[in-house]
């Protein structure tokens, strides 16, 4: 949601800000985690997440 009222040209800092490094690291880790989960466990199955009662719904109910 770019705000036309704020001047984009004002942001000219030369160094990579710390928030970019932290946010980028977290984002990269999260995307890698999701890709690994998708690759290892295959596409989402409904039984993949436990119910609060401790039982899962059968993923093999296809």
């Amino acid at each position: 949601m770019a705000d036309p009222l704020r001047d984009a040209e004002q942001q000219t800092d030369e160094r990579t800000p710390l928030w970019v490094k932290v946010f980028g690291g977290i984002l990269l880790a999260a995307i890698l985690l999701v890709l690994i989960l998708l690759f290892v466990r295959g596409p989402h199955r409904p039984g993949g997440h436990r119910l609060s009662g401790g039982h899962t719904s059968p993923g093999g109910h296809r």
Partner: protein
Amino acid sequence: MIMSPRVRKLALTAHVTSSVGWIGAVLAFLGMSIVGLTSPDEQTVRGVYLVMEPTAWAVLVPLAFASLVTGIVQGLGTTWGLFRHYWVIFKLILTVFATAILLVYMETFRIMARIAADPAADLASVRNASPRFHALLALFVLLVTTLLAIYKPRGVTAYGRRKQLEQRKRTNAMLPRALRGYNSE
């Protein structure tokens, strides 16, 4: 290509509407998932999981793509660009990521609807915590993108700096000779 102020405002309205609509739709899904997990009424529980898939196709998927496309238009049509500022890049990555996960998750909606439609399946196997988990996750990601859009944290990429320099040179060349020094300050 930079949009005219009128077109830019229209594009911004479309982007804000679709993005906020997407958050609202996710909240509605969170509500449905809670009803599906807690309602004692069997018909209600089955109904929740039956209605999730068509509703997701009708509302969530179009809003996700609308948010993504209008966001790209906003980036390309304003001086913010798509790859000039870190916050824009992160917002784009998160939106693409959330849309991709949603498309993968459509298969889960389909499977849950099939279980809910099966009269032989008992209520315990119809109830599923997965939509609640994913709705919370989607809500978190969309709130982060909203925060990025509102706060616009500082940080220009190398490409963005190059573009700013080119822009300054162009503007400088258009100015009368006496004013040229002031533009680069």
